[in-house]
């Protein structure tokens, strides 16, 4: 409408200017004269009454609507003219009021106005809103956007509501009072109720229009984000899920809180609260909980080792719930109070989330046990919930199988982790049911590893307090964990049976998932779990081998650790099985006594006549065996002698071993230096005297000795040598027959020998000779002069760089070889060595007994082979496989084998 029209219209109201004028004002319809009625009488109104009213109403309608029309809002601030007043009154209170009853063909003014507002909103506001929402909303703009929109809506709402309040409500009021004038009830209240009802209905209608104009999903998402954002800021989260960086300086939480409450309550005012907003808030809550847990509680308290569950619970109670209440209040929820039940449910929800997150990391916690105690305690709390155990079990088993039970993990590592698992799970669930089920795959896997038993037993024998303990943590074969576990005092289980201890106030029933026959083992420590990995027999076999090796190398003459270990194992496995080990231990202890006796006897009776050659008389250098060890069996006695450096004369100590009980030992044959041999003879004869003619068999390869070598320019002492090393270097002593050669060639020229000569002189295997030569080259005692030929380095000054290099290389080699040399024959060696015999056993068996299964073969082997068959089905299968490849036997399927027919 242009200005001119307006001016005109203000003077001559032109109804056609607006749609609100349904009929022209000018020609009121006076109705028709009904038949048989006198025409034109002004009193004949009864027939035309309706028409009269209609016409009048139309006029009033026109006036009222024109006045209320939102399209002419410019002029609305005008007060109501009398005319308008009359029209409104007529329409809302007077005769023109639309009937609520049956016939509603007439549109009520209130409805019309509502509609009008809707149409106006659709026409002029909605496009603006749509534009607002059409763009992508940046997270940081979300607040502004919502606020802007809210302001806009609030404005428009005021625009709509004000005329309603000003011009319609008073009449409604009047109307209400006229209706209820005779009501017996409190007139005022009923009046107010009616009016409020109309008002609320209008507001509701407008709000519905607002709500429909918004993209509902995007709105609730944005709102949800706003709430989340506010939550994050209020609780100062970092590590938010939406990737928004947390400002380094904390914002004032009060401002955030105010902004949020303002926004929420004003949104509520324009009708955007309610269910939708509540749903959005629920989303936000959910996310908040997650974020909170991941930002505050996923961190494990590594130092004070405290659980975070109590904190979490108190946060939910004192931080989360108030926020929820605040928001609910802003959104005018019906019941803004959080019920205690709900609080508990939320705490549980929080716990579940925390627990799940923790379970995902459980393997790491186990590895970092016991610094991760806090996390484990959290999990303990989590386990109280329904379904938590199953989840933990499944998840942890998955982690274990993907991270632990693969070929890349060393056995030591697996053992260490297993120990951590035992400890951690013991804390997690003291009854051990959970441990039992998660440990099952690990135990099964450990059993399959060949070196498990060896590592466990060797580790048990290690001295933790040893100065070089640093060394063995780095070496892969020993587990420091086991060793330290071993050094703990042995806790005897005092209570005979917990289940019958009625005074136990901490008694707990078994967890519901324990099997009926589940019985918690009484002995609790880690060693127990390790020792029960195998069948007793297998374990004891391995124990025998390792203990034997260990006893022979042991330097502690009291054998305290060994005694302790044996006692410990006895408690676990029963005494009866450990007879052999006990005999071994007794042997070494006994040997000391025998040595003392024999030495005293030797001192007393034959002083200084044992050594026919004094070192001084022997020329340039003299090997001087201090503690050569050899071992000798009598009927059932082996011995390992040792020498004590008493004087220049060699001395000899023996260890007498009962061969029947010891594992099969190395018994390489070679000739020992003459001095030692004579000592052995003397020892033997004395021993026979003491022990009633029992015979000794010397096992030279097991000895260890200390010698001093004298060169032209130096004197060196070597300790801890093996006998073959001593024998080889002794062989470089000039023989009486060739002494003149040494003299003739001049002093600086050392004795030269080649490998073949040495083999012949010493009756020694070539392998051993070479090993010993490498050792001495490494010690700069010998020098390789030409292939297979070695010369003594008589003067160090004559040593060249080449010697040094060779020495370095050789000493490395010697070290490697020494590491491979054990006193006890390994299983694999044994199997290889006796393979032929075993094979003919198998052939004999299959030929005469027909086709047999592996188990049966194994059983027969165990019974029939003299000296025992210390192998399992795997080795038997290996043998059979090898024989199959040479076409001696044939697999008949199902683990059954037969002789291959020619």
């Amino acid at each position, binding site marked *: 409408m242009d200005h001119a029209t307006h001016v005109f219209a203000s003077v001559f109201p032109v109804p056609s200017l607006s749609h609100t004028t349904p009929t022209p004002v000018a020609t009121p319809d006076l109705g028709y004269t009904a038949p048989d009625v006198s025409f034109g009488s002004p009193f004949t109104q009864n027939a035309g009454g309706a028409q009269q009213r209609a016409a009048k109403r139309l006029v009033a309608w026109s006036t009222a609507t024109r006045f209320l029309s939102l399209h002419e809002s410019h002029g609305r601030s005008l007060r109501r003219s009398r005319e308008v007043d009359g029209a409104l009154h007529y329409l809302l209170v007077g005769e023109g009021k639309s009937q609520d009853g049956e016939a509603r063909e007439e549109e009520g003014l209130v409805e019309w106005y509502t509609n009008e507002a809707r149409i106006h909103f659709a026409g002029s506001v909605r496009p603006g809103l749509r534009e607002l929402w059409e763009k992508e909303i940046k997270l940081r703009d979300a607040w502004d956007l919502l606020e802007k929109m809210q302001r806009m809506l609030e404005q428009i709402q005021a625009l709509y509501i004000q005329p309603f309040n000003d011009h319609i409500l008073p009449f409604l009021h009047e109307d209400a009072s006229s209706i209820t004038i005779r009501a017996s009830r409190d007139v005022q209240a009923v009046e107010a109720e009616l009016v409020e009802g109309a008002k609320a209905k209008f507001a509701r209608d407008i709000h519905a229009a607002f709500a429909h104009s918004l993209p509902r999903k995007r709105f609730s998402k944005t709102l949800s984000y706003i709430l989340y954002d506010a939550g994050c800021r209020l609780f100062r989260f970092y590590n938010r899920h939406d990737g928004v960086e947390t400002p380094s300086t904390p914002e004032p939480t009060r401002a955030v809180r105010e902004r949020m409450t303002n926004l929420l309550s004003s949104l509520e005012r324009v009708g955007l609260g309610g269910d939708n907003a509540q749903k959005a808030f629920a989303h936000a809550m959910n996310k908040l909980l997650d974020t909170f847990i991941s930002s505050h509680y996923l961190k494990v308290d590594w130092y004070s080792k405290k659980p975070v569950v109590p904190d979490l619970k108190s946060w939910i109670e004192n931080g989360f719930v108030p926020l929820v209440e605040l928001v609910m209040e802003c959104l005018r929820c019906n019941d803004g109070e959080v019920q205690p039940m709900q609080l508990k449910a939320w705490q549980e929800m929080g716990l579940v989330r925390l627990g799940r997150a923790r379970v995902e990391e459980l393997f790491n916690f186990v590895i970092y046990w016991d610094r991760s105690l806090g996390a484990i305690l959290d999990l303990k709390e989590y386990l109280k919930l329904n379904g938590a155990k199953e989840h933990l079990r499944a998840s942890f088993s998955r982690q274990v199988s993907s991270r632990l039970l693969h070929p890349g993990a060393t056995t030591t590592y697996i053992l260490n982790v297993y120990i951590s698992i035992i400890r951690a799970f013991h804390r997690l669930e003291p009854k051990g049911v959970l441990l039992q089920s998660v440990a099952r795959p690990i135990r099964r896997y450990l059993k399959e590893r060949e070196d498990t038993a060896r590592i466990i037993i060797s580790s048990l024998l290690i001295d933790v307090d040893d100065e070089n303990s640093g060394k063995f943590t780095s070496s892969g074969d020993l587990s420091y964990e086991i060793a330290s576990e071993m050094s703990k005092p042995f806790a005897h289980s005092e209570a005979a049976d917990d289940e019958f201890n009625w005074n136990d106030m901490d008694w707990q029933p078994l967890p519901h998932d324990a099997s009926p026959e589940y019985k918690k083992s009484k002995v609790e420590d880690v060693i127990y779990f390790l020792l029960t990995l195998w069948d007793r027999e297998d374990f004891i076999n391995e124990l025998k081998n390792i203990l034997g090796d260990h006893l022979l190398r042991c330097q502690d003459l009291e054998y305290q650790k060994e005694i302790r270990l044996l006692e410990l194992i006895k408690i676990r496995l029963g005494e009866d099985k450990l007879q052999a080990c006990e005999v071994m231990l007794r042997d070494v202890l006994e040997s000391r006594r025998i040595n003392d006796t024999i030495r005293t006897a030797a001192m007393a009776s034959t002083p200084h006549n044992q050594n026919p050659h004094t070192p001084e008389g022997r020329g340039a250098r003299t090997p001087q065996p201090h503690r050569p060890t050899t071992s000798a*069996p009598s*009927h*059932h006695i082996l011995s390992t002698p040792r020498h004590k450096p008493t004087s220049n004369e060699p001395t000899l100590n023996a260890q007498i071993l009962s*061969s*029947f009980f010891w594992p099969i030992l190395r018994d390489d044959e070679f000739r020992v230096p003459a001095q030692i041999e004579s000592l052995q003879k003397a020892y033997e004869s004395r021993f026979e005297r003491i022990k009633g003619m029992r*015979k000794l*068999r010397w096992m030279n390869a097991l000895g260890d000795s200390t010698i001093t070598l004298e060169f032209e320019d130096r004197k060196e002492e070597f300790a801890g040598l093996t006998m073959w090393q001593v024998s080889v270097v002794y062989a470089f002593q000039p023989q009486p027959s060739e002494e003149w050669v040494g003299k003739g060639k001049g002093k600086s020229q050392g004795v030269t020998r080649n490998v073949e000569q040495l083999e012949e002189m010493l009756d020694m295997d070539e392998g051993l000779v070479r090993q010993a030569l490498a050792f001495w080259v490494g010690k700069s005692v010998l020098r390789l002069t030409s292939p297979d030929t070695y010369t003594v380095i008589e003067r160090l000054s004559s040593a060249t760089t080449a010697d040094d290099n060779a020495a370095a290389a050789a000493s490395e080699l010697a070290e490697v070889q020494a590491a491979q040399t054990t006193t006890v024959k390994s299983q694999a060696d044994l199997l290889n060595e006796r393979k*032929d*015999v075993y094979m*003919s*056993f198998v*052939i*004999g*068996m299959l*030929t*005469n*007994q*027909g086709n047999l299964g592996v188990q049966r073969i194994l059983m*027969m082997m165990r*019974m*029939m*082979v*003299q000296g025992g068959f210390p192998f399992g089905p795997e080795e038997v299968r290996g043998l059979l496989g090898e024989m199959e490849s040479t076409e001696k036997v044939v697999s008949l399927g199902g683990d059954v084998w037969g002789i291959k027919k020619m």
Partner: protein
Amino acid sequence: MALSTGTRANGGAATVAQRLQKELMDIMTHPTPGITAFPDDENMTRWTATIDGPANTPYASLVFKLSMEFGATYPYAPPTVLFKTPIYHPNVDMSGRICLDILKDKWSAVFNIGTVLLSLQSLLGEPNNASPLNGQAAELWDKDPAEYQRLVLARHKTPEELDAGGL
């Protein structure tokens, strides 16, 4: 091995089982071609042996199973040896009993499983026709080698056939 010899010499009470175990070990460490023997079960007193028929005899390329049973007085008394495989031979009767002097009065404690089986193997090629258990066989051995061969093959059963027969 010094251990075991010593024990036996001293004690004299070495059980039959120990002696048999030693013999088993000897057989296994020094197997004789064409001869094997193995205990039936853990108590070692019953064995099954297998010998191949010697070449250039009617028994060439045939395989014979025998059962051996050792009494409590072994090695001072001979084991009871029977052919389990049906055999046509002058010195073996229809139920497998054997007539061999070293298994009867000529037994000596120096014999062992290996020597007994070797003797039996050679008995196949050189029957003692002077004291036959199977007179027909003793007669045919010299007179009609072809018929002898036929009867040997007719009577023989392979170990598989024996098993199938429910032995």
